[in-house]
């Protein structure tokens, strides 16, 4: 046995008795500091922001759920087909929530595109339910990693598994809402008081990560009442989060995975394996095949994409011709998986997209690059969709 092994053995056999007094002192002081910091934050913000969590990323994560819903809604509007299992899987990352409900209202501000309202409900230990005003319902039980989508107009239901999705606590639905609650503490502008839906609310404007957030808070309780997200790159489009309710009684039957009597089961060949770089490449290839000039998507920022896609559709930039329902569902899945690859990349990956106005086949133009976890080098995807590993100093400027 060498010295390192001997020492390791000694370390492993080392034991120390920790007195309850020591535990009490350490934890007591840590708790006290926790309370002090919370009070400081509340005093500093002037509103009852009772929990502060990560300031970064969450807005993006908040957007992530909304984004994909919005994208799929946009695709739904463009293609005219119904929501599918893909629609159901947009919510897979929101889990472990405590009881909470709210509504998401997406407005595109484009003629003939209606405002879409989606109601969200969450219940511990991992139940989720999404309903649309036209009766579509998706319920997921994260304990079982199973979900069901019910399509009332067709009297059909789709069952799906959600085992292969990454569970990131930062994407917990409660975390998303908690972050929204903290937005006033970093407000760029105070909007004063305004009566909205019969309630006198206090407004704050916060610009973060390319999203203009207008947050309305009840000044008496500090509770979040309404959040409006606007996107400078997609003028006129907005997502409104409203009707927040916490710890309301939600019966387990609302989250039931049992299909209604008389509904037909639909088999979906959905690939739910872990998303990879190949999924993004597949998405980029597919998009370039949808456009008349073979160009890649102008943006990968999902929130703007529905609006951008609709504008492109209006300008006749997409190819014409009939597609089958099956083809449309396949396209949705390709798009969903490609976008999920990008959303799942951590901030440290430093991903960048530069595919706007680049056509498929342009082997000299880098269109996407990122640093995989644990690697010092970057993966660069070129316009001909080949991939190369490059040193950080050789990245495109």
């Amino acid at each position, binding site marked *: 046995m060498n*010295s390192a092994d001997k020492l390791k053995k000694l*370390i492993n056999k080392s034991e120390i008795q920790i007195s309850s007094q020591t535990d009490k002192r350490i934890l007591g002081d840590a708790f006290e500091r926790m309370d002090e910091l919370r009070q400081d934050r509340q005093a500093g913000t002037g509103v009852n922001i009772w929990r502060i969590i990560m300031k970064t990323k969450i807005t993006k994560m908040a957007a992530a759920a909304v984004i994909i819903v919005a994208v799929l809604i946009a695709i739904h509007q463009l293609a005219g087909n119904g929501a599918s299992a893909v629609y159901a899987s947009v919510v897979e990352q929101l889990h472990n929530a405590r009881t909470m409900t709210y509504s998401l209202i997406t407005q595109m501000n484009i003629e003939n595109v209606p405002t879409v309202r989606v109601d969200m409900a969450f219940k511990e230990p991992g139940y989720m339910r999404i309903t649309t005003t036209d009766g579509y319902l998706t319920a997921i039980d994260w304990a079982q990693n199973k979900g069901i989508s019910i399509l009332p107009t067709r009297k059909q239901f789709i069952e799906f598994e959600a085992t292969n999705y990454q569970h990131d*606590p930062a994407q917990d639905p*409660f975390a998303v809402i908690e972050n929204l609650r903290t937005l006033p503490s970093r407000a760029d502008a105070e909007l004063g008081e305004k009566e909205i839906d019969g309630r006198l609310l206090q407004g704050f404007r916060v610009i973060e990560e390319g999203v203009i957030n207008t947050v309305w808070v009840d000044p008496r309780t500090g509770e979040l009442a309404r959040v409006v997200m606007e996107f400078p790159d997609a003028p006129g489009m907005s997502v409104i989060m409203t009707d927040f309710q916490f710890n309301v009684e939600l019966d387990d039957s609302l989250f039931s995975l049992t299909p209604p009597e008389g509904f037909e089961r639909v088999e979906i060949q959905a690939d739910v394996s872990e998303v990879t770089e190949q999924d993004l490449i597949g998405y980029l290839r597919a998009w370039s095949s949808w456009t008349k000039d073979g160009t890649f998507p102008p943006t990968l920022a999902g929130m703007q994409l529905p609006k951008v896609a609709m504008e492109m559709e209006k300008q006749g930039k997409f190819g014409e011709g009939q597609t089958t329902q099956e083809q449309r569902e396949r396209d949705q899945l390709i798009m969903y998986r490609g976008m999920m690859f990008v959303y799942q990349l951590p901030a440290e990956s430093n991903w960048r997209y530069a595919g706007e106005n680049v056509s498929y086949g342009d082997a000299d133009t880098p269109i996407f690059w990122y640093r995989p976890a644990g690697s010092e080098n970057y993966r660069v995807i070129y316009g001909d969709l080949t991939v190369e590993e490059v040193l950080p100093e050789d990245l495109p400027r």
Partner: protein
Amino acid sequence: MGPIIEDKLLVFRCKRGSKEALTQIYEKYKRDLLLLAVALLNDVSAAEDVVHDVFVSFVEALEKFRLTGSLKGYLLTCVANHARNKNKAIQRQLTSTSNPGEAIAENSDEPSVLTACNEQLQRLSEAMAQLPYEQREVIMLHLQATMTFNAIAKAQAISVNTAKSRYRYGLERLRTILNEEAEK
């Protein structure tokens, strides 16, 4: 649930103000943290102070804290950093004391050193105490916290080669110390 996910959830709950989650983190890692601090400082009271300061600092840093690797590794690195400062403070105190021998005697009389640690930990910390502080730190971070030399170098702002040399020299010295001890 994997340990990393479990720790991420605990950190997440701490961020939301859960004292229960903070207690769970403390209970989960207190032994490792205290053991490292004792091995580095050879003084239980000072080690407890270090773990205390690490937890209070952890709470203070929670708002901006983002767990990218192992929570245990993160906390052990914090202990090493705090222990380094504590060691400097102890050294300053010793050099400024008119009778350094008296100060050492006072420390060694600390009953908790004798009662709190088992025989192996006493042997470990006594052997470690004979090494330069920098060598102790690299050895413990590599063997106990299973940190790579790259990570240690980064945490200590030294080169990887320096980290490796400190480890190698420290280990050689320890071999001699432990062998001499066995011969007695």
